[in-house]
C-alpha cells in the first residue's frame, strides 16, 4: 500500500467525523469544533500531497498548511466571538433556535 493512501484515508476519516459533527450537533461550539476537524483534514491532505508529490523539496505544501492554520485560528476566533455574541443576545447556543433568517 502506498504510504500516501494511508494519510489520505486518515484525512478522509477525519473529514467525515468533522462533517458528521458539524451536521448533527445542536450546540454551536460543537459545530465549530467539527468544522475545525474538517479544516485539519484538509491540512493533512495538503501536507501528504506535498510530501509524496513530484517536488518534495519546494516546501510549498508546508507553506500552504501554515497559512491555512493561521487563517483557521483567525476564523476560530471570529466564530467563537459570534457564538458568544449570539449567546448573549439569545441566551442559547442551540442552532435549531437560530432560524430568524427564514425565508
Amino acid at each position, binding site marked *: 500500500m502506498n504510504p500516501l493512501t494511508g494519510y489520505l484515508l486518515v484525512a478522509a476519516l477525519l473529514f467525515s467525523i468533522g462533517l458528521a459533527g458539524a*451536521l448533527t450537533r445542536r450546540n454551536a461550539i460543537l459545530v465549530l469544533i467539527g468544522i475545525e476537524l474538517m479544516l485539519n483534514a484538509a491540512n493533512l491532505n495538503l501536507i501528504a500531497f506535498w510530501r509524496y508529490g513530484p517536488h518534495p523539496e519546494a516546501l510549498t505544501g508546508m507553506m500552504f498548511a501554515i497559512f491555512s492554520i493561521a487563517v483557521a485560528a483567525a476564523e476560530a476566533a471570529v466564530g467563537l466571538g459570534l457564538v458568544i455574541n449570539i449567546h448573549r443576545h439569545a441566551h442559547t447556543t442551540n*442552532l435549531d433556535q437560530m432560524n430568524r433568517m427564514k*425565508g
Partner: protein
Amino acid sequence: MMQESISFTPQLAASAIARNLWLIPAVPIAASGVIAVLKQPRRKTASALAIGALSFSLLLALIAFAHVLSGWANGQAVRETASFTWFQTGASHVDLGWVLDPLSAIMLVMVTFVGLLIFIYSTGYMAHDENYTRFFCFLSLFAGAMLGVVIANSLLLLFMCWELVGLTSYLLIGFWYFKPAAAAAAKKAFLTTRVGDVFFLLGIVWLFAQTGTLLFYNSGTGSMEQAALTGLLAQPAAWGFTAASAIGLLIFAGAAGKSGQFPLHVWLPDAMEGPTPVSALIHAATMVAAGVYLIARVYPLMQAGALTGGTTTALTVVTWVGAFTALFAACIAVAQNDIKRILAYSTVSQLGYMMAGLGMGGVAVGMFHLITHAFFKALLFMGAGSVIHGCHEEQDIRNMGGLKKYMPLTFATYSIGMLALCGVPILFSGFWSKDAILESAHGWPLSHAPYYMLVFGAILTAFYMTRQVSYVFFGAYRGHGHPHESPRSMTTPLAILAFFAIALGALGTPAWPWFRAFLENGAAVVDFHAFAEPAWLMLLLTSCVIVTIGIGLGWMLYGSKSPAADQPDVIERAAPPLWAALRDRLYIDEFYGVTVIAFYSWWARVADWLDRRVWGGIVSLVAFVFGLWATLNRFLDTNVVDGAFDKSCEEISTSGGLLARIQSGRVQTYLRLLALAVVVLAILLFWSGRA
C-alpha cells in the same frame, strides 16, 4: 391755411430732455404699480404717491416745454425724436419712440397740469370712499398712459397707450361696480370705443404695409414725412380714394370712437356714471381729446394731396362729422336733467367743434380749442362735482336751485366756466378758440353748411348752459337737506382752473396768434390791426349775437323761475314731442338697441344653436366613437392581456413559495444541503473522470 416755416430751420439732434422724455409717462405708471400693491387703508400714501409722481411729470413737462419754447424763440423748428427697435422680423422692423415738438409739449403741460389739479381735487371728492387707494392707482395709470399717447412718435406706441387709456377709462367708469348702471356704462364705453379701434388698427396695419414704418418722424423716413406721403398718394385704393385718404379715414374712425363723435358718441354720456373727477379728467379734459390730438398728430397724412388752400377727402369727412356732432349733441344737451349728462353732451358737442376746427382750419385751430376746452370743461365738471358733493350726491338739476347763496365760490368759478363755454366775447378763452373755428368754417371753400351748423350749435350751447346754471344756482333750493360749500382741496383747483379759463384766451387772439405761431413754427407778431379787420369784426358781431340770443333766451325761459322736479320743463309745455325726442337722446341708443344689439343677440343665438346642435353634435359623435373604442379595449384588457399576465404572476408566486421553503433559517439544513451538493459533485467528477 398753414403758414410755411421758411425762416425756421429744422433741428434734428435730440437733446437730453427729448431722450429722457419717456420718464414723463413712466413715473406715474410706476407710481400706479406701487399703489396697486398698497393695502387698502394706506390712503394717504396712495394719494401722495400719485400726486407726487404727477408733479414730477409736470415738472419734466414744463422743462420740456421751456426747451421747445427756447428753441422756437431762437428760430428753430424743434422736433426731437428718440426711437428704438422693438422687434424685427426679416427685413421689416417695428420701431417705437417718442417725439418732442410744440404739439406734444403743449399737450404734455396741459395734461399734467389739469391732471394734477384733478388729482388734488379727488383727495377731497373721494375722501369718504373706501376704495380710495384703488382709485388713485387707476388715476395714476391713466395719467401715465395718456402722457404716453401724447409723447408717442410711433403709431404703434400711441395705439398701445391709447388702449391702456381705454382700459383705465373702463376701470374708472365702472369704479362703483356695485351699481349696475356703472358696470353697464363701463362695458358700453369699452365696446363702443372698440368699434372705432378696430378701424384704427386696420389703418395702422395698412400704413405699415405701405410705408414700412410706424414712426411719425424719423429724419425723413417717418410715415408722416414727405417721402412716405408721396408714396401713399401714388397708391390708389378702392372707390377713387388714395391710400392716404383711406388710411386717414380709418384712423379717424378710431379717433371718433375715443372722442365721442357721431355715431360712436353713445358711450360718453353714460360714462358719467363714474366718479366726477374721472368725468372731469378722462371724459372731458384729456382722454376724449386724445382723438383730436391723434388727428392733429397724423395731420400731414390727413392733409396729404391737398391743393393749395384746398381740402382732402379725409379732412372733409372729419369736418362734416365734427360739425354734425357739434350741433346734434348740443340739441340733446338742451333736454337733459342730469347735471353731468348735460356737460357730457356738451363735451361731445365741443369735441365736434375741435374736429371741425381740425378739418377746416388746421392743427392750430383744433388744438387751441382742445386746450381751452380742457381747462374750462374740467372746471365745469369739477364745479358740477362740487355741486353734487354739496347737495348730498344729488345729480338731478331739478332738485337743486339757489345754490348761489350756499356755494358762492363754486358758483363764481362755475359761471366763469359756463361763460367760457358759451364763448362770451373778448373776456373768455372759449370765445377766442371757438371764434377761430367759426372763422375757418366761414372761409371753408366747399360748403357753408358747417358754418351754420356750428353757429346754431353755439347758440344752443349758450342756451343749455344758461338753462343749467339757472336750474342749479338761481331760484329757490328744491332739494333735501342743507347744501354746503366743498372743502378747500376741491375749491382751490376750481379757482386755478377758472383763472386759466379766462387767461388762456390771450394766447390765441388774432392780434397775437402765439399759439398758432408756436405750433406751426412761425413768428408770433403783435399786430393790433387784426382787430380792425372787417371779417374779424363781423365774427365778433356774430359771436355777440350768438351769445346774446343763447343766454337771453335761456334766461327768459328759465331765469330765476326754474320749475321743480314734478313740474314739466318750459320747452316740454311748449313742444312735448320735441322735448321727448331730445330727452330720449334722439333715440340713438334705442336705434342701436334694435339694430346692432338686436343683430348681435340674434347672431349670438345662432352661434349658440350652432355650438349646441352642430358642433356639439359632432363632438358628441366623436366622443361616442371613442367611448366604443375604449369599451373594446377594456374587454381585451380584462379578458386577454390581464389573464395572461395574472397567470404568469401566479406561477412566479407559487414557485417562489416552494423555493422559499428551503430557506428555513436553520444553519445546519444549509450545511446539509451543501454537503449533499459536494457529494453529488464528487460523484459526478468521479464518474466523468472514469469515462
